[in-house]
């Protein structure tokens, strides 16, 4: 018995020492990846460009708020995390940050006073950023952003997540080496990989999360790399594998989707609208080509590969497609509620074949939002509508109206189930309870 007590006491002491070490051991920040010469000057406009490619604005600006003043709520499974003020205001923003402080925030997720930031800030990805881009970003925030003297709301998570020292442990497990390694002999692919993995932080949404909620798939050789994730119940579709958009779509379609938010198949919705609106539309043609080439490369496509236009679906799928089209075209008043609701609400734009119209009305047949395992995105769009971001090349803010005001939860469930199972789609049914939950949450 005494022995046991001794062991427990010893373990407790060890534990306390370990925790003490975790809490009090001085933290060492990641050093610059390269030493830039003293005369190095950030090229004109590069800071703003890096900011856009890293999409800092999307999270660090509240709806209707001052740019970069923070205060945007980020819903996480742990609770609401508020984005911080990153304007150069010394009191409320990052005006007092040195370049090293700034780099530590980007690379290590650590504020100058040693406070760890929650990994809602994608420092897992930003730590791959080159020193040139870190310098450019720092330069931009210090010199081109208007200081805003307003404190962003404090993030106040419940115990134990409010014990930020725990993030040191998390970091030990989650973080790889800083910097981005060039894997390829090809400058375009290397640039594409850098943009996707570092600034673009695509894996933050498009890779799944592991048991400790770290990105599971941060490097191209990770098995779950860009294999699809779920953000607030919305599917962030897989960018890797047979049915992923980079594997199915042409180079032009991918290019169009990422720069304009729309292409001949689909249109952006949810979080991706902001990514296109605030970030990707500003990518140079060269950089966008690099990203698209890279995303196609990891799916075994080379730039010269064209996507077969012919439908390579099996015969059953084609028959199912025809059957739905015929049912809708029959306009038979005795058809079930789901297709009838489709005719009354959706058909005007998306048509009986579920194919919509290039660049304007998205396809329903084969649409990843429609067939996602979690139907939250689809339900949300039916209830509340959706608007495309205005982009330089396609400025029209094309909008789908909201239907929540005229359809009950049961009707939305019938309609959603119909579109998830119509044509060649084959996804589980939606229940009225699922609709009610989204309605309550989004109203």
């Amino acid at each position, binding site marked *: 018995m005494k022995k046991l007590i001794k062991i427990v006491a010893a373990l407790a002491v060890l534990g306390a020492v370990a925790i003490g070490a975790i809490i009090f051991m001085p933290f060492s920040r990641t050093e610059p990846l390269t030493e830039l010469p003293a005369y190095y000057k950030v090229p004109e406009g590069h800071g703003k460009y890096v900011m856009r490619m890293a999409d800092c604005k999307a999270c660090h600006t509240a709806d209707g708020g001052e740019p970069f003043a923070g205060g945007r709520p980020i819903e996480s499974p742990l609770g609401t995390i508020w984005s911080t003020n990153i304007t150069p205001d010394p009191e409320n923003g990052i005006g007092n940050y040195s370049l090293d402080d700034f780099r530590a925030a980007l690379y290590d997720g650590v504020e100058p006073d040693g406070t760890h930031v929650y990994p809602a800030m994608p420092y897992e990805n930003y730590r791959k950023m080159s020193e040139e881009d870190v310098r450019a970003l720092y330069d931009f925030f210090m010199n081109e952003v208007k200081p805003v003297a307003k404190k962003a709301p404090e993030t106040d998570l419940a115990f134990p997540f409010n014990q930020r020292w725990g993030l040191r442990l998390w970091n030990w497990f989650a973080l790889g080496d800083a910097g981005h390694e060039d894997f390829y002999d090809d400058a375009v692919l290397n640039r594409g990989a850098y943009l996707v993995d570092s600034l673009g932080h695509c894996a933050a949404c498009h890779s799944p999360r592991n048991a400790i909620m770290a990105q599971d798939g941060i490097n191209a050789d990770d098995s779950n790399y860009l294999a699809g994730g779920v953000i607030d119940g919305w599917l962030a579709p897989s960018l890797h594998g047979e049915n992923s958009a980079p594997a199915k779509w042409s180079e032009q379609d991918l290019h169009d989707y990422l720069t304009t938010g729309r292409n001949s198949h689909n249109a952006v919705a949810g979080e991706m609208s902001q990514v296109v609106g605030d970030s990707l539309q500003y990518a140079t043609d060269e950089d966008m080509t690099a990203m698209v080439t890279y995303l196609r490369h990891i799916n075994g496509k080379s730039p010269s590969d064209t996507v077969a236009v012919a439908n390579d679906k099996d015969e059953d799928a084609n028959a199912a497609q025809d059957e739905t089209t015929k049912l809708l075209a029959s306009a038979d008043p005795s058809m079930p509620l789901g297709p009838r609701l489709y005719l009354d*609400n959706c*058909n*005007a*734009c998306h*048509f009986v074949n579920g194919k919509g*119209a*290039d*660049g*304007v*009305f998205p396809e329903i047949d084969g649409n990843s939002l429609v067939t996602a395992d979690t139907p939250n995105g689809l339900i949300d769009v039916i209830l509340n*509508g959706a*608007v495309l971001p*205005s982009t*330089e*090349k*396609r*400025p*029209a*803010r*094309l*909008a*789908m*109206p909201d239907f929540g005001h*005229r359809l009950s939860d049961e009707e939305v469930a019938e309609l959603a189930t119909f579109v998830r199972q119509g044509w060649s789609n084959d996804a589980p049914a939606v229940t009225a309870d699922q609709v009610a939950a989204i309605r309550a949450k989004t109203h």
Partner: protein
Amino acid sequence: MARQEKKRDVVIVGLGWTGSIMGMELCNEGLDVLALERGGDRDTVPDFQYPQVADELKYGVRYGFMQKPRKSTVTIRRSESETALPYRHLGSFLPGDGVGGAGMHWNGHTFRPMQEEFELKSYVEKNFGKDLISDDMAIQDWGISYKELEPYFDRFEKVAGISGYAGNLNGEIREGGNPFEAPRSDEFPMPPLDQTVDSNMFADAARKMGYHPYHRPSAVASTSYTNPYGMQLGPCNFCGFCERFGCLNYSKSSPQTCILDALKRKENFEYRTNAEVLKVELAADGKTAKGVTYIDANGEEVYQPADLVILAAYQLHNVHLMLLSGIGQAYNAATGEGVVGKNYAYQTNGGTALFFKDVDFNPFVGNGSNGHVIDDFAINQIDFGKEGFIGGSYISSGTFNGQPIRSMRLPADTPKWGAGWKEGIKDWYGHSMAIGSHGSNMSYHSNHLDLDPTYKDQHGRPLMRMTFNWKPNDIRMTQFMKSKIEPLAESMNPDIMQSSFKSEGAMYDVRPYQTTHNVGGAIMGTDPQSSAVNKFQQSWDVHNVFVLGASAFPQNIQYNPTGTVGALAYWAVDAIRKDYLPNPRPLA
């Protein structure tokens, strides 16, 4: 004392088609542009959103998108001997209100005039002699040729995304198009739309009679389309809610679908809604404008200085603003002096309804620009000397709207209400079609616009007075069309046929809807003695005021005006960009 706002390079009055075109093109020049729109803001979602906008009672019958006469109207009389009374209930014409103007509630018929129409007076004099032009007639040449305007028609049609098939491509006459049209430099941006039963029956009958049916050029999209500004249209689903409605489907060309989202991205562009311009303010010498005064959303008077003033309001309002501001000399019908307000003209239309017991027309399927057209009796196809009139029409058939309340055409002997009416609806709903003629309307010394001596608007400004009546020349023209349409209709063997064409002695009736193609009043030309603006749409008297729209038409063309209005806007802005801005001065 009016509040004064920061001076702008350009102020645009009205944010419809021409205002949006000007805004876009002048912003692209780097100018600081402000548009003032008297009505509210409007966008596809939420204002035209499906299905709320497909409410015929609210928008089709109660004019939800039109100007409200209690806020803005004209007085009307048919001759000098009558006392003009306010147009208190919309009927004959329906000016728009709000962002997009009438350009959002139109049907989308987008024609180009014949080349002869731009030189009508010379054409008549040369081919048929001066005597054919009666003393009361005030027709003029436009001072611009079709050839000069052709690239600008092409430009507008590409921005608006017009569907159709060219009948004359660079001089080559092509089967299936309009063989009588002036040469086009390029194909239409989109192929023609599919046609409804009535349109195809009409085309077949016309072909049998040796006529040349073609698809109506249409601002309703037949495919997905991206215009030069990157703006997008989606294919029409034939819901039939075009005329009097905003399009719920991004299918009908309008400032909203073709320009505004691109314009709103520009940092040098701003627009203010519920900002009604009262007057253009002139410098002391009256030779230049200093800006405009408007009433803002809170009812406060605001002085907005600007270097360049673009009047891009509806035709009636452009003329009204010129009269109120003293831009150009007001026209005096008694003496024939003055230019502002002269040559007001309208449109001379007629039609024949055909009832077929055994044909189902499915009248709930249609679009605003549906239809086949023949130009076999258009202006360049008629011997005016022989027929004894000047003018022409296009003749067409199609289903413009699928709106039930206004699409219940009935035989004339059907009771107007009660059991007999219901019986008539039961028998005839969906069993009729119509063949219409849409014709020119000449200008006359006695048809004109001026300030009303009695009635004032809510801001205390005199209302504008319209003096207008039908004249024998145009009635002869429309009767001629009747004589061509009726045999064509008869050849189709309808069970019942009834015609409605103005006949001798017809007086202008403001109650039934006719058309919102009011033209003239600030006409263009080559001589400041006989026109209000030069060929660049620039005021002869105040060189930094440009006046756009159908107010520039010296008489009305036989076609719907919007294609020409759009082309003239691109033509004018080109002159402003290339010639006026480097050296502001009278351009002609």
